[in-house]
C-alpha cells in the first residue's frame, strides 16, 4: 500500500466528483431535498387542524354550543353549509371527505333531555363521508372523541377511567427526528453502492483498468482510495443533512461517537456489495439497473421512510435480512433513543455483514485485464 498512490487516486476521484454536477446533486442535494420535503409533509403541527363543513339546520343556541365545542381546541375549522343544499351533493362538489349535518330538531331534543331530564331522548348527528379518503378516519375519530366528551359532561359526573401517557423516550420526538437517521443511512448507501458500481463499470467498459494494470497501482491501493473517497462523500452528505435538519426543523438528535463509527461501517458494507455486484454490471447502463434493483427494495423495506413494524410479518422478517435495516436501527438507537446497548447490537450485526461482503468483494475484484 502506497500513500502517494492512494492520494493520487483520491484527488482524481474528488476532482471528477466535483466536476460532475449530477453526481453532486444526487449525493449532496437530493438527500437534503428529501429531508425538506418529507419533513414538511410529515411533521405534524402541535394541534391537529381539520376543515369541517357543517350544515346547521337547527340554527339555535343549542346548535351554536355544539359548534363551539367542536372548535374549542381548534381541532376543527367550521365551514357553514347552506340549509337548502343536499349535504351529499355538497361533499361531492366541494371535494369534502366529511360533512356534518345538525338536524332541525336538535334544540328541541336537547331541551327534552337536559331540561326535562328525559333520558330516553337522543339526537342523531348525521355525517356524510368519503371512505376512500385516507384522512377521513382520523377526522371521524376526533369527532367521535369530542361527541363522547360532550355526552360525558352531560351526565354531570367526572369520568371514572382516564388515560395517562408515558413515553419510552426521554424527550418528545417528532417524525423528523426518526426520519433524519434513515435519510443519512439511505444517502450513504446510494452513494457508496452507486459509486462503487459505476466506477468499476467505467473502469472496465472504457478500458481504463487495462492502463491502470500497467502502473504500480495495486488492488489494495485502489480499494483503500475507494473507501476513503466514499468516506469523505458520506461525511459531507451527513453534515449537509444534519445542518439542514437543525436549521429548518430544529431537530433534537444526539450526535456522539457512534455516528462516525456507523458511517464507516455502512460505507465498508456498501462498497463491498458494489464490488460483489460489479461482475453483473460491466457497462454503465447495466450498472445503473443492477444498482437500482438492489437499492430500491432496500430503501423501502429497511425502515428508511416508515417503521418496519407497519409491514406484514413476512416482509418484517425479510427486512431483518437487509443490512440497511441494521444501519437504520443502529443510527436511531444512537441518535434518537440514545440507547448504547441497542446501538452496539445493531451496529455489531452491520459490522459483521460489512466485514463479510468487503472481504468477499476484495477477492472478487480483479486488477488486471482478465475481464
Amino acid at each position, binding site marked *: 500500500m502506497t500513500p502517494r498512490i492512494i*492520494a*493520487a487516486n483520491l484527488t482524481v476521484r474528488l476532482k471528477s466528483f466535483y466536476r460532475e454536477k449530477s453526481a453532486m446533486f444526487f449525493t449532496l442535494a437530493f438527500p437534503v431535498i428529501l429531508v425538506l420535503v418529507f419533513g414538511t409533509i410529515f411533521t405534524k403541527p402541535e394541534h391537529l387542524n381539520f376543515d369541517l363543513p357543517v350544515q346547521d339546520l337547527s340554527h339555535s343556541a343549542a346548535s351554536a354550543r355544539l359548534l363551539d365545542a367542536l372548535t374549542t381546541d381548534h381541532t376543527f375549522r367550521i365551514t357553514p353549509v347552506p340549509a337548502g343544499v343536499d349535504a351529499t351533493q355538497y361533499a361531492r362538489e366541494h371535494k369534502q371527505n366529511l360533512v356534518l349535518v345538525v338536524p332541525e330538531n336538535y334544540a328541541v331534543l336537547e331541551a327534552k333531555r337536559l331540561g326535562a331530564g328525559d333520558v330516553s331522548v337522543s339526537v342523531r348527528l348525521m355525517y356524510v363521508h368519503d371512505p376512500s379518503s385516507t384522512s377521513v378516519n382520523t377526522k371521524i375519530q376526533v369527532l367521535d372523541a369530542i361527541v363522547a366528551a360532550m355526552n360525558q359532561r352531560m351526565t354531570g359526573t367526572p369520568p371514572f377511567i382516564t388515560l395517562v401517557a408515558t413515553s419510552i423516550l426521554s424527550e418528545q420526538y417528532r417524525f423528523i427526528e426518526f426520519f433524519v437517521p434513515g435519510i443519512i443511512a439511505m444517502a450513504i448507501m446510494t452513494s457508496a453502492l452507486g459509486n462503487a458500481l459505476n466506477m468499476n463499470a467505467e473502469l472496465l467498459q472504457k478500458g481504463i483498468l487495462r*492502463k491502470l*494494470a*500497467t502502473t504500480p497501482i495495486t488492488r489494495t491501493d485502489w480499494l483503500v482510495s475507494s473507501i476513503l473517497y466514499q468516506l469523505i462523500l458520506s461525511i459531507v452528505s451527513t453534515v449537509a443533512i444534519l445542518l439542514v435538519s437543525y436549521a429548518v426543523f430544529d431537530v433534537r438528535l444526539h450526535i456522539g461517537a457512534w455516528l462516525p463509527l456507523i458511517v464507516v461501517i455502512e460505507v465498508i458494507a456498501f462498497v463491498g456489495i458494489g464490488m460483489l455486484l460489479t461482475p453483473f454490471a460491466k457497462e454503465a447502463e447495466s450498472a445503473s439497473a443492477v444498482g437500482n434493483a438492489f437499492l430500491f427494495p432496500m430503501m423501502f423495506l429497511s425502515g428508511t421512510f416508515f417503521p418496519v413494524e407497519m409491514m406484514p410479518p413476512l416482509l418484517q422478517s425479510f427486512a431483518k435480512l437487509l443490512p440497511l435495516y441494521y444501519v437504520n436501527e443502529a443510527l436511531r438507537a444512537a441518535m434518537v433513543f440514545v440507547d448504547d446497548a441497542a446501538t452496539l447490537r445493531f451496529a455489531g450485526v452491520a459490522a459483521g455483514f460489512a466485514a463479510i461482503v468487503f472481504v468477499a468483494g476484495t477477492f472478487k475484484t480483479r486488477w488486471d485485464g482478465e475481464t
Partner: protein
Amino acid sequence: MRHDMPNSEHAIVVEQLCKRYGTLLAVDGVSFTVARGELFAFLGPNGAGKSTTAEIIETIRAPTSGRVTVLGMDVTRSKAKVVRRIGVLPQDFSSFDRLTVRESLSYYAQVFGCDADVDALMDLTHLRSKANARFNTLSGGLKQRLGIAAALVNDPEVVFLDEPTTGLDPHARHAVWNVLKGLKDRGKTVFLTTHYMDEAELLADTVAIISKGRIVATDSPARLTEQHANHMWLTLGSSDAAAPGLIRQMGFDATRSSDESIGVPVNNADDVRAILGEIERAGLSLRGMEVRKPNLEEVFLKLTEEHDSDAANEGSK
C-alpha cells in the same frame, strides 16, 4: 523466420507462449525476441492473437504457459518491477473523463512516483495547446497522443503501443508516426502492435507476423518482401478486353482490377519488355504503365493466407 537466442541485448524475450480461453487457443507457442533500441512491429489480422500476446508482455494478462521476460525480468513473477520500467498505450486507450490533459499526465507521474516534465511530454506529443482540455472533449487522435504521453511519464526503457493509430484520420496518423520516430531517435525500444502495413513498413526495424495464434514470419520489412515476394509488380493501363487473355497466353498471371488496370507479377525487366512488345504487336491500346516492388501488405496477405490454408488442411486431415 528469425528467432535469436535470448541474450542481454534483448529487451523482450517470448518463449513458447500460450494463452487459452476455454477451448480456444488464442496464442499457440509463440516465440520471438526484440532487441534493445529497435522498433518492433507486431502484425496480424483481427483475432490473430496479437493483442493477447501484447497484453501478456505488458503484464495485463497472465499466460497459460510459456515464459516472457522484459529487460531480463519475468513478467508474471516480477510484474511490480517490470511495470516501473515499461510504458504502455493499451488498445482503445481511455482515461478519466473529467481530468484535463495536464492533470491526467500529472496523475500518472504521481502514480509512478517520478518527477515527469509534463510540459516536455505535451510538447513531444504536440498536446501543449490542449493542456487544459478535459479528456472527454478530446478527438480520437488527441486521446491517442495523450495515451502515448501517459506511457512515457516514467521515462520507460520499453514502450508498448497497441494499435496507436486505429480509427485516426490521415493527419492524426502522421502526427502519431512522428511521435514514434521521436521515440526511436531517443533510443527507446518500441513494441508496436498494428494492422496497418504501411505503418510497419515505414517505422519498423523488425516485423513479426502472427496468424491464428502462431508466428508465421519475423524479419526486417525489406528482407521479408525480398524473401516472400521475389517478383515485381507490373501495372498496365489498358481498357482493351483482349489484353489480360493475351498476357495469360504468355504464361503470366494477369488480373484486371476495378479501375480497369491490369496487374501482372513479373520476375525481371525481360518479362516487362516481352509483355509490352506483345501488346504492341497485337495493336492493343496502352494508356500507361508502372513497375514497382511488392510491399509488406502483399507479403502479409500471402503469408497469412498460406498459413490459413495450411491450418485448414491440418484441420481436415
